[in-house]
């Protein structure tokens, strides 16, 4: 069984196609990233998974259940943190946790979750008086209250400061350790790179690619660059047999090698084999962000604004 299975999902708003025949499957226990620019259809997709939107076509299964037909069953085991959502403004953190805990048959201890989310000092603070980051943490705490088997987190760390963001990442990694399946919608490349086992790139309502973060970078086929200096003049022929290297340039004692694949390792091995000592070695490779831009087309041509984020 897949944790989440989406087949042929199609959703339009008026004459705008938000999601166009999208299929994906999330394995049990993995952290699955959904990456795409604004309006690519990410939120519509997770809303269909969460049962908040009725697809025009296509099928969605979450833990084997139909999110709309088996709503009551699924809600007990699926935690959802939405991008835009307020809570009862005049209730305190403690009161809101208590209220939401009462909705679940089994669940986490509210006090413990409050501590874990770093809201201990705000226990008695009304929702309306929390900072944006605190509201976000409370929303995530609420999503975890029912001890869910799968969680959807939409823009998890938006509005969090760097420290809170890192804490949140640790929390998500902790969920994976407990076997919870996580779907993470994000704009934050570092977050996706660090947390996700696999990433789906969504572009204009369609699935552009699915792979590990490193796999996506490789798939984008972007050049890597290895730079180093040598104590003795460098003979470029040393790297002749290195398939990964595409070009070698030398200028004085400086050497610049560009290429792809496992370039750094291949170059190092060749140097060691020829007994050349490299100094000040640096390595540049494409980031996930570069790969994202390469795989979904130019960011600035304006033609990418399909669909609408709803």
């Amino acid at each position, binding site marked *: *069984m897949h*944790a989440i299975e989406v087949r042929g999902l199609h959703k339009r708003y008026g004459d705008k196609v938000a999601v166009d025949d999208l299929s994906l499957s999330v*394995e*049990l226990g993995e952290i699955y990233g959904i990456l795409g620019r604004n309006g690519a259809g990410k939120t519509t997709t997770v809303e269909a998974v*969460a*049962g*908040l939107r009725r697809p025009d076509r296509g099928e969605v299964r979450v*833990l*084997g*259940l139909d999110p709309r037909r*088996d709503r*009551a*069953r*699924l*809600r*007990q*085991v*699926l935690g*959802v943190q*939405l991008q*835009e*959502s*307020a*809570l*009862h*403004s*005049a*209730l305190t953190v403690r*009161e809101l946790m*208590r*209220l*939401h805990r*009462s*909705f*679940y*048959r*089994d669940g986490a201890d509210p006090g413990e979750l409050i501590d874990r989310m770093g809201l201990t000092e705000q226990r008695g603070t*009304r929702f309306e008086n929390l900072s944006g980051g605190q509201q976000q943490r409370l*929303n995530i705490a*609420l999503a975890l209250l*029912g001890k869910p*088997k799968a969680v959807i987190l939409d823009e998890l760390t938006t509005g969090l400061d760097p420290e809170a963001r890192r804490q949140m990442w640790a929390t998500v990694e902790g969920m994976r350790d407990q076997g919870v399946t996580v779907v993470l919608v994000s704009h934050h490349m570092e977050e996706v790179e660090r947390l996700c086992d696999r990433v789906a790139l969504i572009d204009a309502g369609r699935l552009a690619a699915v792979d590990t973060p490193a796999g996506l970078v490789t798939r984008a086929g972007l050049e890597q660059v290895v730079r180093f200096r040598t104590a003795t003049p460098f003979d470029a022929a040393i790297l002749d047999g290195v398939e990964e290297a595409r070009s070698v340039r030398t200028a004085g004692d400086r050497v610049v090698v560009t290429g792809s694949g496992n370039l750094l390792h291949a170059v190092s091995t060749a140097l060691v084999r020829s007994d050349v000592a490299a100094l000040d070695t640096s390595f540049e490779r494409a980031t996930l962000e570069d790969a994202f831009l390469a795989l979904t087309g130019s960011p600035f041509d304006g033609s990418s604004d399909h669909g609408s984020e709803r």
Partner: protein
Amino acid sequence: MTAIEIPPARRPGPRAWAELILAEGKMVVRDTAGLLIPLGMPLLILVMNGLGSAGATTADGVSVFERYVMPVVFTIVIATVGVVNMPSFLAYYRRSHVLRRLAVTPANPGMILAAQLVVSLIQSAVGVAIGMAAAMLFFDVGVPERAGTALAVFALAALTMYAIGMLVAAIAPTGNAAVAIGLALFFALGATGGMFGPTENLPEPLARIGEALPFGAAVQAVGRAWAGADQNPAHLLALAAAAVLSTAVAVKCFRWE
């Protein structure tokens, strides 16, 4: 691959209902301005009228206080709670996505409507209790002649006001808009229904219309029960019709998000 065991569906139980009603109660109590109007304004009107017209009687010897003032006071309570307060919360909940947030939990956003209704009922009961106590204590007002009938027609009137409130919640885009629409409706219904003095002082056609509208009909029906007179079916029919119509439109127009 391990299979995941998912327990059978379970609707939120009595505890969830109790917590939700408690939550709505806190929302209402902590909204000080919204709390003061339905509890304070009727009391003010009661006292002002009590000082002015205590002891006055109508042509057929019925106490003006019991025939008009008390019914107006009680109708203000249910109208401010039902037509102004309740919809402002519901519209706010929709606007700020509280309903949407609730839709992804095992609780149904419909539960929030029900919980608000319960809290509104409690708030109305408190307002009525305060008004009744003050009237009995300071102005020597007794219980209605036909207490059972008074209670029944008052319950119908409350139901109608809540139905109108649901209609306001359905059409108002924001919480503020709900307050504005609710207040406008409240004053329009109140002014034609005897809130600012007996409807006899209004031009004849306006008074007729006012009596057919929920506020006026409620005042007349409760007043008759208080004075021990027979009910005029037209008033009850007017209340029931307003309740049914408002509910129908509210159900048709209500949006969860």
